[in-house]
């Protein structure tokens, strides 16, 4: 009998043995031979529109009211029964505060976008804005779990979205990971393969010269010298390897060193932007102080898409509660919007001009929206999981669309409501998978990766 630890966290050992793979403790590098592709054998499965996903996760909770969901200021001052966040679930009285942004209708679709996102406004005809998401959790950490794993709570160690894609599709490039994360997340959960195991976890990547930790040999070591070392290493290992030739660990070690070497070759060219023309760098805002960091991440994301990386997650302003957590003053959103506005628009334009937008799904989302009122005075906004906005572009999405609505002040989603897992279902669907068949067998129990919600948002799919 194959023994396991029922009910508890799956032991990593079991996850690895189950798939007959060697796990990487920090990434999904090894998942290229994924033998499990739910939905793959299904003739009814949706057509694959997107080959890669770029998930832009704004950590801390973006105010939909100040970005993509404008509200009439005539309601400012209206005292409301507000349900606060966290422990403070008892109704409290709060006045609606005015929104200090101006909105402009952009593109042929005329979708209004706030003055904090002018460049994104410029590509709005490629974007489908969904203004009616809701979820249960109103505090950061549980909300990050819920919005990234599509499940509440910690009863089970649910995997994050990117690891589902690793699990279902595997890699299209055996020298690079399937699921990559850039930027600091709010929670380790955003990188975790959960009960699927470390094999499907995110591989953290950085822009700059060392995209993966310890990837590069010491600076003072020449290539020739490293090659000489590797030759000597093979010779010095030889007798031991012959003696333990039947030991699978020892043959795996050889492979691990080979893969490490391949990654040393394939990863640095990926992060080397020397051959990108200035016009492209400019498009992403690379070279401008405020936009360089995020711009580099997005350009690297495009280059990864070209190399077949399936799921690229970029966490913006993560760590702690996330910088988008504007309790005190909405003005703290401004630099964050500026840091992301131009790079996002640049990414969409760049992908489009290369003919890659149709096969690349971009999703912009966050852990919750923000309330129409403030906790303190009239400047900041509280957490609001009752109604918030996320948007989609490319990958078979109908651009220039607005779908769903919140109430007159932006508190609750009221029209075409979507539970947060509909984001996951839409991604999975555009990747050509049947969201209902995204299952995982573990401890004799079937875990459905999507349990709540209505499935893919058909109204925004082209």
């Amino acid at each position, binding site marked *: 009998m194959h*023994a396991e*630890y*029922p*009910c*508890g*966290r799956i*032991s*990593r*050992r079991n996850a*690895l043995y189950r798939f007959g793979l060697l796990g*990487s*403790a920090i*990434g999904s*590098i*090894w998942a290229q031979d994924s033998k499990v592709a739910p939905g793959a054998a299904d003739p009814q499965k949706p057509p694959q529109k997107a080959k890669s996903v770029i998930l832009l996760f704004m950590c801390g909770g973006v105010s939909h009211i100040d970005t993509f969901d404008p509200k009439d200021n005539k309601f400012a001052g209206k*005292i409301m029964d507000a349900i606060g966040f*966290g422990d403070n679930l008892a109704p*409290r*009285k*709060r*006045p609606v505060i005015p929104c200090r942004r101006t909105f402009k209708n952009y593109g042929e679709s005329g979708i209004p976008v706030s003055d904090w996102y002018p460049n994104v406004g410029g590509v709005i005809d490629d974007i489908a804005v969904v203004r009616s998401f809701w979820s249960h959790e109103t505090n950061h950490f549980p909300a990050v779990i819920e919005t990234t794993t599509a499940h509440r709570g910690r*009863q089970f160690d649910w995997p994050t979205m990117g690891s589902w894609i690793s699990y279902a599709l595997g890699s299209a490039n055996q020298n690079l990971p399937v699921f990559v*994360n850039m930027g*600091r*997340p709010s929670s*380790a*959960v955003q990188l975790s393969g959960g009960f699927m195991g470390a094999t499907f976890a995110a591989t*953290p990547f950085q822009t700059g010269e060392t995209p993966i*930790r*310890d*990837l590069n*040999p*010491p600076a003072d070591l020449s290539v020739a010298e490293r090659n000489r*070392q590797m030759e*000597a*290493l093979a*010779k*010095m*290992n*030889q*007798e*031991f390897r012959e*003696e*333990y030739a*039947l030991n699978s660990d*020892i043959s795996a*070690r050889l*492979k*691990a*060193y080979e*893969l*490490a070497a391949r*990654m040393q070759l394939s990863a640095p060219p990926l992060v080397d932007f020397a051959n990108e023309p200035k016009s492209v760098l400019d498009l992403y805002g690379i070279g401008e102080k405020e936009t360089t960091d995020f711009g580099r991440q997005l350009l690297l994301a495009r280059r990864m898409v070209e190399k077949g990386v399936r799921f690229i997650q970029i966490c913006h302003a993560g*760590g*702690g509660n996330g910088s988008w957590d504007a309790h*005190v*003053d909405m003005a703290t959103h401004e630099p964050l919007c500026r840091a992301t506005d131009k790079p996002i628009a640049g990414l969409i334009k760049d992908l489009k001009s290369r003919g890659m937008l149709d096969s690349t799904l971009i999703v912009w989302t966050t852990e919750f929206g923000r309330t129409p009122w403030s*906790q*303190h005075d009239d*400047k900041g906004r509280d957490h609001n999981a009752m109604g918030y906005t996320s948007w989609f572009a490319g990958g078979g999405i109908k651009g220039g669309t607005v779908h769903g609505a919140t109430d007159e002040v932006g508190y609750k989603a009221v029209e075409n409501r979507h539970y947060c897992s509909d984001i996951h279902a839409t991604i999975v669907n555009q990747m050509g998978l049947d969201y209902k068949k995204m299952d995982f067998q573990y401890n004799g129990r079937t875990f459905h990766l999507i349990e709540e919600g209505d499935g893919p948002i058909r109204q925004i799919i082209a």
Partner: protein
Amino acid sequence: MQHTRYSFRLLFVIALSALPLGAAPPPKPTPWYLEPVKRPEVPAIAGQSVNPIDAFIAAKLKDQGLKAAGPAAKTTLLRRVYLDLIGIPPTPADLEAFLADTTPGAYEKVVDRLLADKQHGVRYARRWLDVLRYADVDDTMAAASGINYWRDWVITALNEDLPYDKFVRAQLTGYRDGEYTTINENGNRRRALPRPFDLFALGFIARGQVTRDGKDTKELQTAAVETVSTAFMGLTVGCAKCHDHKFDPISRNDYYAMKALFDPLVVKRVRLASEEDTIKYDGAYSDYEKKKAAAEKQVEDLIAPYKAKLFEHLMQMLTPDVQAVFRKQEKQRTAAEEKIADDYHVVFKVMSSGLKEYMPADLLKQYTTLQKASDAIRAPAPLPEFWAVEEDTERAKEPSYILTNGEPDQPEKDKPVEPGFPFEPKGTEFRDGRRETFAEWLVAPENPLFARVAVNRLWGWHFGKGLQPNPSDFGLLGGRPSHPELLDWLASEFVAKGFSMKAINKLIVMSDTYRMSSAADPTVTAQNRAIDPADKMLWQFPLLRLDAETIWDSIFSAAQSLDPKVGGKSFQVAGEEGGRGRGAQGPDAGAKSSDMQRRGIYIQRGYHQSMDVMPNFLLAFDADDGRAPCPERTRTVTAPQSLFLMNDKLVTDASARFAERLRKETNSDIPQAIDLGYRIALARPPSAKEKDAALTYVNADPSQLKGFTWLLFNLDEFSYAR
């Protein structure tokens, strides 16, 4: 008194009938692991060994037609037993002395010395702490300050060979001996005073008190149940949190009865400072209070008028009736008005940002300066403290309930439970207290699970795999032992030896089985593999990948920079701050490492929802974060491990120090340096072929020795015990 207790037998029948096996199997009266331990006859086997372990192993090998590998080379054995018992490889001097000693007792002398070495406790504490879910950080863990005193208690207990029953009893109750009360000459019985040191053993339970997102998770009790049951009973009682165990005779009621053992517990902060330090601290604190109050008053005086203005501004946002409430003195408000005031209270929470708009620029500047000065006045560094647990008398009076899905806020009020535990003997009275009574049952020599689970764990730590394959799950899904008689013999021997862990460790490492080669000759291997490819019967010693901490210790001991100090605060790995592109490290649990590296056990570990706690090194080499009990480490082989050994600065720097050591000790004589390098890194001289390869690489250039030492760290053999 309602005390639901199902008939054990009946429950097992129900459990079995729930198995998806088609035809229901005939009910068994008792699972094997609950059968009393009977000391089996030692099989009679021809041979020199007098160690019963060898007799049991040989009997099985013979049964299955397997042939044992010969003994390991002396060099191999020495490195194996060093890495196993103290987790640090032998020095060239140790090696030389052992090779020179040709007396029959040479190996035993080494074993005795290693078991008496302080580093033995360090090595085995790390193994125990995996099982007992030690962590330095776990979101907001009440016991975080001073948690290392528990770690160090475990080290000390193992070094002193504290008998296993006392080891467990102390961590459950704070009393190593079962004497919880004393009687004085007047016949008055009172609580006995425990040994002061055993206070630190209670870190085991206190560690479970965790706050996440500002909320008490109430995990202390459930963590205690799940850790105690897996670690000491080998049972996955945790399944019964939500439903009756499907495979083992444990009901939901059992789970919550066991939880009730811990329900009255609360964490308690204990100051560890001396009287003198406490008095000194108080002086410093009074000083701080005075200065702080003065500085705050200056700020307050400055902003008071503007605060009033802001108040008026905020009032304008409210309806007149609400305004009226706020204009009343707090004490003059009616209850209804008070409710309104509370509702709107947050509107008035004055934020300094809002305040600024009402202040003229020069005052604002003054305000910022004063505020800064006030912030700079800090309380003196806190006195050392430790968090233990104690029983809260009020809580002890409250009934315990079954919880829906284990949610602390969802008690099923119609399902009260009494304190108890699985397989509790009829008529158990909780006279000495809940945990105490349970502990006495648990650690009793008659308890068949207690000794079996423990000796199996010890066996697994020496051989990489227990006789029972899942050391924390002796239940139906955990698999059956490969050598049930040997397991029982060891269990009875453990009891007979007064639960001495060192005695069992010695017995095991002294066996011929432990001293076997890990590479049987090719013909034997071919024949054996046809019968037992996984080496379940132990026809050769398994080749074992070293765990993270042992690799760490091996690297830094070769570089001669391993700090052998025992105990103290954990440290963060240098260069790990934001190392994985994941931002800052977890809460500072101790000093950063410097030139001297402390042993791997002291590397900060744990989990935090928004910070990196586990350094890349520990993650890459499969160390667990301590969130759940880790019965045995996974041993993966991955590219990130290779990248660490190839390119990480820690390894490059250590290679340079190792090379410097070789140059110094051999006067830069290259053939000698190569020879010494092998002896230090692998505890053996190089073969002719290896030496040739190394000589070719170094090419008579002493500056290439750091490449050579790098090669040694990257050899397969360096990361394995053969």
